[in-house]
């Protein structure tokens, strides 16, 4: 199921402003790739170009190619809705649907996309919640509203919701930045399990987290405020954190930034 992402010459714009410039990289299947870099360097923007969520922002525009195995996401006849079913996303702040129960939240992606039998849905919801390590905590209150859970549980609910539609790739935009250390640990363990089945890309501001969860790490930087962000280097996480090939990466990682 997991697919390789091959990006070449990708630039993204907000109106006339160029947010990221000419990025090319390969994301390996069944692995975790972490994006690190200072705020405003375009990590999140780049992440959102990988499932065509960037163009949802008014004025958002993309140039370049994103190959998912052998299909260009920005090809002429590609349906963004279909892309987003294949490439799922988890956001920075947990955002369960407030009008829906826990069950309905997980089932939302399936139910709003087509018809499913009740028994089939039950199975998928249970499997997804187990996959997100949330089943034991919520199995007795599946019909309670999702917004009643704690922040960490809500985030795992959102992960369950994302994996319920069986995507090939899972994008995570700072999934732990609103969570306490214990919930963060739970999510990080979960990422370790999920990478057996999905290609995972995670944006994080927490360098220890990148070192803990990822196999490969990409460092983004920008020349100055207002300049577009660029990919500085992408390498095995171990190398990035021990012996990076670019000086800027070492400066950033060791806190001598700027």
């Amino acid at each position, binding site marked *: 199921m997991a697919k390789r992402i091959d990006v070449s010459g990708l630039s993204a714009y907000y109106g006339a402003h160029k947010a990221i410039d000419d990025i090319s990289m390969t994301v390996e299947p069944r692995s975790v790739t972490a994006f690190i870099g200072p705020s405003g360097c375009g990590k999140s923007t780049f992440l959102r170009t990988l*499932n065509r*969520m960037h163009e*949802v922002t*008014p004025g958002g525009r993309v140039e370049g190619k994103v190959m998912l195995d052998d299909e260009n996401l920005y090809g002429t006849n590609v349906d963004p*809705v*279909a*892309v*987003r*079913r*294949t490439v*799922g*996303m988890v*956001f920075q*702040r947990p*955002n*369960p*649907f*407030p*009008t829906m129960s826990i069950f309905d939240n997980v089932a*939302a*992606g399936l139910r*709003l*996309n087509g018809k499913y039998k009740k028994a089939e849905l039950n199975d998928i919801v249970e499997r997804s919640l187990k996959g997100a390590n949330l089943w034991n905590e919520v199995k007795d209150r599946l019909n*309670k*509203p999702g*917004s*009643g859970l704690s922040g960490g549980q809500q985030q795992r609910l*959102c992960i369950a*919701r*994302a994996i319920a*539609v069986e995507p090939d790739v899972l994008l995570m935009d700072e999934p732990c930045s609103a969570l306490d250390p214990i919930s963060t640990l739970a999510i990080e363990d979960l990422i370790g399990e999920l990478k057996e089945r999905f290609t995972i890309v995670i944006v994080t501001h927490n360098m220890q987290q990148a070192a803990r969860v990822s196999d490969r790490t990409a460092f983004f930087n920008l020349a100055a405020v207002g300049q577009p962000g660029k990919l500085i280097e992408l390498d095995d996480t171990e190398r990035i954190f021990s012996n990076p090939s670019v000086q800027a990466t070492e400066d950033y990682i060791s806190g001598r930034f700027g």
Partner: protein
Amino acid sequence: MSHAIQERPVTVASRPGSLSHARLPRWTPAAIAAGSIAAGIGIGLAAGWHSKIQWGMIAALLFVLITYGLTTKVEGSRQAKDRVATSLVWVCFVLAVVPLLSLAWVTISKGMSVLDGYFLTHSMNGVLDAEAGGGVYHALLGTIEQVGIATLIAAPIGLLTAVYLVEYGGGKLAQAVTFFVDVMTGIPSIVAGLFVLATWNLMLGFGPSGFAGAMALSILMMPVVVRSTEEMLKLVPNELREASLALGIPKWRTILKVVLPTAIGGITTGVMLAVARITGETAPVLLLVFGTKLINPNPFEGAQSSLPLYVYEQFAVGTDAAMARAWGAALVLIAFVMILNLVARGIARWKAPKTAR
């Protein structure tokens, strides 16, 4: 300079610590209010004024002044400003509530005398002006039908317009729509009535009917629905839209299944407020529905009546029996709008996003 230094210990001595200071007891505002009202009545009686409004103004003025004076003396000037602001808020609240209560009281006390089962279930068929009896059944039926049809026309159009403005709009067209909705908000109801009269009745040649009135009412209702729905949709966090889109759910289903349900409570309240607004409209109904003493359940054919129109007609007749009927109908109208509002609040509370664990 030395003067200031000399003064200081005196102030400090009057206060036990720099963080605490003398406070008026908690019942002070109530006591001042009671005193001011008593003084207002006293002054009013002594001066021989008949208008109770003058008594009330004196009382309100005294309330604010005494509060300010007393607090400055005991608590200091900052607290005095705080208390004056608070008391002004209270005075404004009372100013707003007194007419409301007085209106409710007058309507209930004058309307209750005729309001009974007979009044609600009978029309004015064959009832002479000066004669007691008769009822509002035909008017109540007319109001329900006209308002219902107007809502059926205006609510979907208004809702969809708001969805367009918030979810799809952004260009010149959306700006134009917003502008015209604002203009529509300001249309006087008689103009909406004349517009329908000119097109539907004079140009197309239809006679008076409940439907013609409903069309005019829907013109008045539409901008209110658009405005309130727009504000409610804007309150739905963008994150929810993105979460839904990121699951591969198409935009129209996102709007239908995520955005609208999240905002449904507020939208219902907005629609109900618009309904309440048009229920009391008299002018377009007078022009287009014409009024009748008989029960006409068909809103598409022939004259109907409506509650505000009924009140107007009975008031114009002016006999004691007719006046009593006018007050009774006014009470029915107020109760009708109030029940609608309560229902709307109930729906809003029932449908609101749930937060309980």
